[in-house]
């Protein structure tokens, strides 16, 4: 067994609009079919180039492109995606990295991830319970994201499947947003929202730790009969050999 998620990845709780990781993704829809060049930078160094072929010959409407270098190197041939619906999702499966993605149509840049446009999405998956502060220089505003400590009885797993949608208007309008761990947060970029930072600003109550595990134990016990009123010398089970 090889563990992919390690402690460092889980403990990393600060994000920015150009941080790609196992828990933060950038989604860009291609405007029209065609053959594009893609350049991927890490810390301002070009690390990979390839082609994206967007054509209706391809059925896939989304491409999850892992910017982890060994994954990029493992890519055989061009990236291929549908022509009418083409959503490119960039992430890094193994680390928190500062990446820049440039997509070119011949020599002209049609997308630069440092300048997001309307239609681009930044998707977050916040796991660690606590309070996060989202600050946006471009919007000159901030808001809180409160990731609740889950309660086995109160919080259904299906609740976390409902996405939280934020955009430039809602970020300005609301002070805080509650959510569950592993509940997707989709931030619509554009409309003045070009950048943001998310910092973990307040931790949860430490006493809650192990509450889910302890509740699981209680549930395990409650579902199973453990007799406590046996009379002395009562035979529970008999195994016999007869000749």
């Amino acid at each position, binding site marked *: *067994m*090889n*563990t*992919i*998620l390690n402690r460092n990845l*889980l*403990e990393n709780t600060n994000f920015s609009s150009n941080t790609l990781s*196992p*828990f933060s993704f950038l*989604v860009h829809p291609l405007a029209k079919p065609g053959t594009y060049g893609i350049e991927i930078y890490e810390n301002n160094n070009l690390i990979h180039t390839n082609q994206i072929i967007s054509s209706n010959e391809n059925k896939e*409407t*989304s491409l*999850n492109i*892992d910017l982890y270098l060994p994954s990029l190197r493992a890519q055989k041939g061009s990236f291929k995606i549908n022509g009418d*619906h083409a*959503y490119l*999702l960039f992430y890094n499966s193994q680390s928190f990295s500062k990446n820049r993605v440039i997509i070119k149509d011949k020599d002209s840049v049609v997308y630069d991830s440092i300048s997001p446009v309307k239609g681009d*999405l930044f*998707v977050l*998956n916040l*796991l*660690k*319970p606590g309070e996060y502060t989202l600050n946006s220089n471009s919007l000159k505003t901030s808001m809180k994201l409160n990731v609740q*400590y*889950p309660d*086995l009885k109160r*919080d259904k*797993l299906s609740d*976390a499947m409902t*996405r939280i949608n934020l955009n430039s208007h809602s970020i300005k309008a609301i002070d805080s947003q509650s959510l569950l*761990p*592993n509940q*997707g947060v*989709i931030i619509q970029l554009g409309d003045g929202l070009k950048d943001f930072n998310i910092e973990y600003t307040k931790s949860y109550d430490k006493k*809650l*730790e*192990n509450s*889910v*595990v302890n509740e*699981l*134990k209680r549930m*395990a*016990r409650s*579902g*199973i*009969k*453990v*007799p*406590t009123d*046996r009379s002395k010398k*009562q*035979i*529970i*089970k*008999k*195994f*016999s*050999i*007869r*000749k």
Partner: protein
Amino acid sequence: MATIQLAVSENSMNKVLDNLINNFHITKSGSSTGNFRASYNVGIRLTGGSVDLKNDPDEIVLKEIDVNWDPLNVTLEIDIPEICLGGFCIFWLPFLGCVARAPKICLFSANPDISIPLNLDGLITSEISGGFNAIIRYKDEPSNNSLNPYQAYAANNMDKWQVFLNSRWLDLDIIDISDTVGNLLDNIVDNLINGIFGGLPGWAKDILSWSLHEINDIIRGILDIGDDIDEWLSDLLGVNFGLFDFILQEVGNYIANSYPLYEISNPFPIIPGANPVLLPINSIRTDVTNDEFVINVDI
């Protein structure tokens, strides 16, 4: 033909039983072939018990011999299904459905195998009882073939008439499983979570456990624990491991073959010493009354 009767009381028989069972010790290790993989390491000793003599039909009943399980260690091997985060739909379009989905980040590169060691020492109280008939065997010492009876006596190497017990029936009764059996489930949950999420902080174990909070169903499904943990445990030890049958077979074989209940030299030194008087024994027979075990010696 004259007959000499040797009568042994129940009390004397109890002392013989004590000597017999106190020397019993077996160990066994192995693994199951059931729905899940499990291995075990077990040691068994016997103590206590009493003898009850029964007439018509003749039977020597060894009652309520305590089975001491020391050690009783079980290791469960569990395949955990793939555990992934993310994978939710990001963008949904009418008629097309989900057109962009978040990547699934899986916790492991392959389905992990988790080993869960369980120390079951002291958890089970059990007893063995058995009904036996006496069988007579003649031990012909090959090393005294070239000796006359007096030389064999001098060499303390005579043939012997021996009385053994042969089992008719054996019961292993599980008479108590400690209430602490519930702790087994805590142990399983703890070991499972630490096995999967070992090294992660407590909050992360909580979040990930919550993310797969059907973990209890996983445990119970994989281990096939119904709603009765006593039943599950006795099935695990008795059926999956076949330990109860094994113990009964071993105890039956041990009592039947290891030590004779009594033995009488043939010829018998009716006057021992440097110039012994030796009495040839033609045969021996046994009889059981409700109070005594009788050995009839035909001379």
